[in-house]
C-alpha cells in the first residue's frame, strides 16, 4: 500500500476515532480515550513549510556581516 499524505492519514484516523466515540457498544473508557486522542490530533499544528535553504543563506550572511564587523573593530 502506498503511503498516504499526512493530512489524509490524520483524517482517516479522526474518522476511526469518531466511529469508536459514537459506538454505543464501546465502553466509557474506550469512548473517552477516543475523544482525548481526537482532541490531541486536532490540536497538533500542521508543520510549517520548509524554507531552510533561503533562511540558511540569510542567517549565514547575517553571521558573516557580524564576523566582518567584529574583525574590523
Amino acid at each position, binding site marked *: 500500500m502506498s503511503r498516504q499524505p499526512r493530512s489524509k492519514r490524520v483524517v482517516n484516523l479522526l474518522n476511526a476515532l469518531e466511529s469508536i466515540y459514537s459506538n454505543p457498544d464501546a465502553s466509557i473508557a474506550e469512548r473517552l480515550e477516543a475523544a482525548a486522542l481526537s482532541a490531541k490530533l486536532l490540536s497538533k499544528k500542521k508543520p510549517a513549510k520548509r524554507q531552510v535553504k533561503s533562511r540558511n*543563506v540569510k542567517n549565514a550572511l547575517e553571521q558573516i556581516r557580524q564576523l566582518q564587523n567584529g574583525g574590523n573593530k
Partner: protein
Amino acid sequence: MIDWSELEELYAASRSDNAAVRTAALQAIESNLDAWVAEYLSLPANCYQETKTVGLYKVATGQPRWTSLPDLANYLAGWLEQNENEGREAFFARTNRLQTDRLGVLLTHHKHQKARDARQCDSDFIRVDGNTFLLSVCWDGSQTGNEVILA
C-alpha cells in the same frame, strides 16, 4: 528565486582573509549550491527556446541547455581568452581554476549571458575577476571589440 546579490556577497566572503568568515560562507555555499544550480539550469533563459537539431542531437523546447555544473563550466571555459604573453600551461591552469570554482562558474556565466545580450558586435568581450571572456564567435580576429560593462 536566486538572489544574485546574496550570492555575490557569499562568494566574496568565501575568499575573505578572515578564516571564520570564509568557513561560514563556504558552509552556506556547500549546503545550497546544488539547489542553486538546479534552479539556474532550469531557468527559461537556460533552456532551448525551440525544438531543433543541434549537430547530431535533437533538442526539445524547454529542455535545459546544460545538464550539470561541469557542463556549464566547460561551456564557459570555451569563451575564456588567452592573455597576451601568457604561456599555454598558465592558460590551461587558469582554465582549470575557472572550471573548479563552482559558485564562480554560476556567477560568471550569469554575467556572461547578460553581456552577450548587451553586446554591440561579435568581437565585444567582458572581464570578470581578471579573466577575459569573448561574447560570441568572432571570425575576424583582427577586429578589436569593446568591453561590455554591466550595471
